[in-house]
């Protein structure tokens, strides 16, 4: 998981390259570097460990006057975080420089072969092998493009890469296989990047590379060719639908808070997606013999919530599976539907699971945020959620919008399957329509209460997040938010599961957050309260997210007025996002880029 940016222009590119790679930092940020053509004939490299700003401080990247260059921000997979292992990597004679995102499966074999022919390796990375391999092929054929093509054909695994060469100093070469890469078409400048954040300030016209394609980019033209046949492919220009201002923080201290506050809008957008797009996916699922909902991390919990919704509303038996484990359980066939959920549309595990299912001839669909992403393009039907850019590594608005789309899907299927009366459906839809305003009320009137609670309890080391029924996936997702952004241990658990083991952990140092359904939920409400009693009996501190406000049962509680049982579970989720956010600020965490995490995980 890394970020790639490249610019070729009639004008100095240092600022644009620096900004581009900085906007890709969410893809990884343990080291970074750039390679550029100096004096029209040789390659210079500046790289080091640290964030883009730190490396710029040491290497003065923005002072450069070059007009052709590529840059990289790294999230280590092969080799430690060292200056040596930072990209770009060069060949022996420094005539080729490569930046790469992905994993080359057969790099050891290639490396051994190259070492035998005299190539000297300076790093532990798979990427350096590519640079040497291209140099080797160039020494045989004398043409940069042919050398690249020949080298790429030998690579196994996944890659998105960009390359410059002193033998062809006016152009950038790029290619992709199973890792994302797009070209930006500008005015007197052209760009390449892992996604459009690399160049959105300069152009919104993009050309999306597909697997097995490579691109050659110069100042005033670009071409995309097939790696197999070498023929030029006529690609459409895709215009990025949102502008860069949206992906800036605006008046917020962190992207996470910004994106939490954008949820009313994300829900409104999800509700305004045309019904026929939902219906098209419902068509597939209605007649399917088997339905899998797929996601990993947050999106797995979204899928799990979908499973509860489909069971309750549409009387459907579907399986939510985590896509990293999917292949072990996949029993799909031509009568099956696999519905994947992914914000980035590039998640490696989900991509591989979809390939696996396609191999078994299953029909595929997806809910995706990123236009033109791999998953969006590979499935039979896609619902683009249109939540706008989500920059914080921790997903908030994208996940909530996905849940809303699954709710709409459940309503559609419920009607078709006769599990839902027209009146109930109308009531549920009215509840969804009222949700954005209810969320806004929480953001406005409860933020201070939740912040105060977060600061009071910031030193708590262990949290248990309890929920029953549909509040169980909510508890799981809330606990994941807490873990990933605060580094505090939080375990999501079904209320009934607690007494079968985990209850032995509960003491006065273990804090419990309980997601309490409204009293109108009947048994679900009373059973949740019985879990609270179990915790209290062991001296545990119980923090309640309730729908009715204060209740003596809890040591502390925050209440959310919910208009309708159908949408009530989403309100405490928003509150839990705020709790995680404020706990993270109380602990001075790196909110938008938590340690060890990357926005979209495109590696196995």
């Amino acid at each position, binding site marked *: 998981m890394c970020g790639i940016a490249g610019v070729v222009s009639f004008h100095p590119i240092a600022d644009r390259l620096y900004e581009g790679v900085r906007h890709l930092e969410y893809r990884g940020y343990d080291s970074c570097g750039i390679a550029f053509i100096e004096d029209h004939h040789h390659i210079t490299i500046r790289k080091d460990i640290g964030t883009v700003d730190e490396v710029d401080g040491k290497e003065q990247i923005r002072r450069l006057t070059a007009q052709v260059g590529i840059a990289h921000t790294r999230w280590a997979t092969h080799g430690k975080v060292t200056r040596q292992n930072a990209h770009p990597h060069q060949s022996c004679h420094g005539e080729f420089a490569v930046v790469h995102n992905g994993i080359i499966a057969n790099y050891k074999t290639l490396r051994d072969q190259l070492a035998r022919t005299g190539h000297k390796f300076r790093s532990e990375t798979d990427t350096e092998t590519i640079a040497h391999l291209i140099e080797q092929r160039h020494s045989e054929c004398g043409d940069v493009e042919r050398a690249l093509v020949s080298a790429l054909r030998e690579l196994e695994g996944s890659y998105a890469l960009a390359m410059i060469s002193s033998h062809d100093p006016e152009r950038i070469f790029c290619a992709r296989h199973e890792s994302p890469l797009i070209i930006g078409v500008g005015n007197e400048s052209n760009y390449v990047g892992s996604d459009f954040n690399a160049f959105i300030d300069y152009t919104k016209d993009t050309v999306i590379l597909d697997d097995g394609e490579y691109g050659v980019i110069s100042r005033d033209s670009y071409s995309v060719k097939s790696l197999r046949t070498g023929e030029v492919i006529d690609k459409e220009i895709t215009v990025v639908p949102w502008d860069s201002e949206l992906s800036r*923080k*605006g*008046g917020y*201290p962190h992207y996470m*808070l910004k994106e939490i506050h954008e949820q009313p809008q994300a829900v409104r957008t999800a509700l305004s997606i045309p019904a026929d797009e939902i219906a098209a996916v419902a068509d597939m699922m209605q007649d399917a013999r088997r339905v899998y909902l797929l996601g990993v991390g947050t999106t797995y919990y979204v899928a799990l919530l979908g499973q509860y919704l489909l069971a309750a509303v549409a009387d459907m038996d579907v399986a939510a599976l985590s896509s990293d484990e999917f292949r072990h359980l996949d029993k799909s066939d031509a009568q099956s539907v696999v519905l994947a959920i992914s914000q980035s549309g590039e998640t490696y595990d989900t991509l591989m699971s979809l390939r696996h299912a396609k191999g078994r001839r299953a029909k595929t669909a997806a809910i995706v945020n990123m236009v033109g992403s791999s998953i969006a393009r590979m499935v039979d039907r896609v619902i683009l959620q249109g939540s706008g850019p989500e920059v914080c590594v921790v997903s908030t608005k994208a996940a909530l919008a996905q849940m809303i789309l699954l709710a709409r899907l459940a309503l559609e299927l419920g009607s078709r399957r006769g599990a839902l009366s027209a009146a109930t459906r109308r009531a549920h839809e009215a509840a969804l329509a009222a949700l954005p305003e209810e969320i806004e009320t929480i953001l406005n*009137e409860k933020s201070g209460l*939740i912040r*105060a609670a977060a600061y009071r309890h910031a030193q708590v080391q262990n949290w248990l997040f309890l929920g029953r029924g549909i509040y169980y996936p909510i508890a799981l997702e809330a606990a994941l938010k807490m873990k990933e952004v605060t580094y505090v241990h939080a375990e999501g658990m079904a209320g009934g599961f607690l007494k079968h083991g985990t209850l032995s952990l509960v003491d006065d140092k273990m804090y419990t957050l309980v997601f309490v359904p409204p009293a109108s939920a009947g048994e679900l409400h009373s059973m949740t309260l019985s879990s609270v009693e179990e915790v209290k009996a062991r001296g545990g501190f119980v923090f309640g997210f309730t729908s009715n406000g204060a209740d003596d049962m809890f040591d502390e509680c925050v209440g959310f007025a919910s208009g309708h049982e159908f949408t009530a579970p989403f309100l405490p989720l928003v509150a839990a996002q705020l709790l995680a956010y404020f706990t993270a*600020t109380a602990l001075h965490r790196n909110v938008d880029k938590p340690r060890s995490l990357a926005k979209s995980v495109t590696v196995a």
Partner: protein
Amino acid sequence: MKALILTAGAGRNLVPFSETRPKAMTVVGGGPLMARTLAHLREVGVTDVTVVLGQAGEKVKAAFEDGQDFGVHITYVEQGPQGGIVDAILGARGRFIPGEYFILVYGDVVTSANPFHQALQSFNSFKAPIACVCLPGPPTVRYGNVYLSGTRITRIVEKPTTAGLGNYVLAGVFILPVEVFSLMEQAEGDMEEVFGRLVRAPGLNASIWEGGWIDIEYPWDILAANRMVMDTWEEASISRHAVIDGNVTLSGPVRIERGSVIKAGAVLAGPCYIGRNCYVGNNVLVRSYSSLGPGSSIGYGVELKNCVLLGNARIGRLSFVGDSVIGENVDIGSGTMTINGNMDRSPVSVDIRGESIDSGLVKVGSFIGDDVRIGAGNTLAAGTLLRPNTTVPHHATVSAR
């Protein structure tokens, strides 16, 4: 960009200290609040500052003069003879150029870091009026409650009546178009009214401040603000012109200014601040979050804990001063004890202008106004408040009310 600092608020709940100085001269982290505001402004390149003065404004003038020592240029605007704030603000109007934006700062808010960086960043992204907002922690009935949609402020509830809300509130830092002066005139200086009108047209954008923020309203807020500022200190610093005996123990971020003398056996636990020309006697214990204003003299064996001495205090030997704020030129006789909590650990109440106000704090000592003289061997109850110039005889016991 230019800045306008409002220091004219009467601060009537900040007794006894507001009786003799404006709130902006309240000391936190070893210096007056306004020095901190000026430093923050200079950091973001704002050096043309207009200060609106109110009651006891001459103290501000005396401390900051033309601003040269603080790297800024200050113009003062005073209230009219009737004490109307409108006159003062309109007096400042001529300093600003129509069509431009300016920074408006309330003189009585303390933040844990420079708030202007983020305010300007927000302004650059919106190119429209900006109000910094923050979450002060409940209850927020002290403030106007802000309602947001995204970062757009949709309404401000001036006197909220609903209990138990946790809204964002105005943080006292704004970036506004100069045309706002006409609104101020129409609203007769009622700033809440001004912001209400701004929200309706042309609109007000929120910049959310997530750092520490304290609005100094009551005297115990001084201690909280002092603590917040000292918590940001990373390093100790000792003037080369301070004299420190042998056998003095220093730990943590201790700041000692020029001319101070620390005698043998003293223990200073940082963060703490010893201003210019202080005398810290033998075996004195200065515990963390204590701040000694310039010229203070602390006798043998005194213990200070979480307290702010505004300056020129004299504390006699074997006294204890904790969780307290001590005004200028206060003389405390030897063996004096400030009791700093109720026996049942219930929150301490303080008599503020005839009304008993619950501080919400378990540890509260005394608030002693300027020029107070306290005889030897006294015991001051938790929450004692002494007005300026009070004299307490030897061996008296002062109850809180």
